[in-house]
């Protein structure tokens, strides 16, 4: 039977949400060659194997995710649509493995053209010259007429959450060098806008839902650090989800509108005591700890009503509270295996104790890069996990499965199966977030506008037709 009709949008529980994370990796090639090697050359070598099977340096993968070379010649990985945080963490960690798997081939390719060197890939947000690149979060929200004020209500939270989910790092030089919560905070220039590269806002308001536009909108958050530690990802995305759930249930968030957001985000980042005073529009002056406590208390007050107290929600709230207590007490021990800034700071402080190095010592910047390096053999992360210095949220088996297979409960399942069928049947396909098409197949495009729908007879039929006709062609 051939199914042609577009299925009606599924009616989903309000607590279900589609999440996605987009990570731009810093690409660094170390070599001794005399001639100058461009970033484009290195990115091209890194993606050589991808182009060979995908005929493009911009592909969707069998796990449903997108992998491509971004503007500025560096890899970007966007997770598939996930509707659970564990799927999201597994997909995000799978992305690290997928780009890391390209490194050996890229180095070999460069070696064949006479350039010996090693490729490093950083899941971080700043380079040595003051350039910044992002980790963008996507939250599918129900469409509403007041999106701007809805998103705006989250800004005070987003500006102050770095004291929990910042990746940490040294900012400034000489006597002004200090360890800050978020090196990214110095590179954000606007509260809300539809641009990204030009002005780099905190929330990008471009209306691009990749879904039924009458039902959904995508909240695209740009102000955030790439996370290495899985508990940091859990808290970063999980806390936002809880606040969005409250707003979607018609509950007001505490009014903490910040008078000067750009000044506030920098001052909060630079004060590791969490006591930087932030001027609010209503005249109050609060610390980021107080502001986060108000957000947390608002969520806690809805546990059992708007928000169900699942084990996962408990873990999010527990880490949120312990993080605030740790900053408040100036004793980071309770979170130093869970929150990136605290994990990394422990390494840096111990290094300084052992060597007497100042914070702007290049060896500390080198250590910082090693914390974020996902290239095989170069990064600290696997050893930190193995030694119990970083906690994990998902198992190694889940990550490996997420490298190959899409999440089972969202549209990503359809895309992933389609991409795999294309590879296995040797058929040229095109895919994006909402479209699937077999090249040369009478121009037939399947539109997948419901990100919650994981089953679709049209896709089953298409895959069946590819497999049978593919065998004939071969």
């Amino acid at each position: 039977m051939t199914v042609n009709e577009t299925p009606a949008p599924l009616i989903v529980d309000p607590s279900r949400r589609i999440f996605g994370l987009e990570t731009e990796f810093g690409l660094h090639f170390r070599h001794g060659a005399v001639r100058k090697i461009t970033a484009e050359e290195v990115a091209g070598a890194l993606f050589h194997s991808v182009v060979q099977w995908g005929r493009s340096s911009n592909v969707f993968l069998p796990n449903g995710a997108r992998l491509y070379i971004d503007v500025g010649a560096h890899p970007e990985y966007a997770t598939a649509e996930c509707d659970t945080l564990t799927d999201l963490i597994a997909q995000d960690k799978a992305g690290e493995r997928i780009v890391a798997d390209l490194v050996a081939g890229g180095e070999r390719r460069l070696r064949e053209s006479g350039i010996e060197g090693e490729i490093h890939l950083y899941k971080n947000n700043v380079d040595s010259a003051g350039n910044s690149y992002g980790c963008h979060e996507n939250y599918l929200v129900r469409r509403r007429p007041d999106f701007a004020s809805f998103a705006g209500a989250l800004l005070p939270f987003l500006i102050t959450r770095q004291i929990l989910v910042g990746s940490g790092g040294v900012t400034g030089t000489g006597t002004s060098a200090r360890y800050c919560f978020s090196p990214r905070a110095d590179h954000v220039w606007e509260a809300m806008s539809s641009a990204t590269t030009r002005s780099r806002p905190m929330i990008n308001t471009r209306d691009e839902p990749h879904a039924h536009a009458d039902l959904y909108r995508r909240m695209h958050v740009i102000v955030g650090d790439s996370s290495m530690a899985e508990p940091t990802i859990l808290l970063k995305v999980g806390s936002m989800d809880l606040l969005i759930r409250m707003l979607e249930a018609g509950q007001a968030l505490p009014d903490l509108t910040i008078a000067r957001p750009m000044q506030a985000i920098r001052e909060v980042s630079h004060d590791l005591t969490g006591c930087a005073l932030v001027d609010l529009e209503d005249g109050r002056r609060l610390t980021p700890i107080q502001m986060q406590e108000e957000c947390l208390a608002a969520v806690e007050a809805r546990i059992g009503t708007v928000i169900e107290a699942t084990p996962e929600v408990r873990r999010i709230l527990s880490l949120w509270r312990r993080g605030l207590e740790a900053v408040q007490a100036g004793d980071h021990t309770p979170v130093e295996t869970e929150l990136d800034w605290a994990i990394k700071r422990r390494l840096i402080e111990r290094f300084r104790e052992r060597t007497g190095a100042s914070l702007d010592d290049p060896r500390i910047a080198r250590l910082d890069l090693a914390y974020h390096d996902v290239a095989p053999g170069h990064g600290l992360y696997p050893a930190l996990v193995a030694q119990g210095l970083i906690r994990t949220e998902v198992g190694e088996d889940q990550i490996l499965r997420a490298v190959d297979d899409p999440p089972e409960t969202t549209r990503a399942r359809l895309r992933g199966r389609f991409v795999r069928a294309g590879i296995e049947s040797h058929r040229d396909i095109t895919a994006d977030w909402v479209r699937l098409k077999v090249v040369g197949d009478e121009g037939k495009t399947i539109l997948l506008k419901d990100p919650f729908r994981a089953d679709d007879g049209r896709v089953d039929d298409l895959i069946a037709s590819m497999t049978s006709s593919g065998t004939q062609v071969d």
Partner: protein
Amino acid sequence: MPQVSSSEHPYDEPDDAPATSPGGVPQAQANAVDALLDEIDVTLQQNAEQFVRSFVQKGGE
């Protein structure tokens, strides 16, 4: 540090609390940090400044 009562914060997981036994986990972690720093010492001492400076990323987003 005062123990938060479970009735006040019903979501708190006792398992999440850091090990409180003196020595034990904290000492093991401190040793692990030292072992890790020993391991990467050669990398850190080797031309760190040149390494860090040579990493420049053209814009994205």
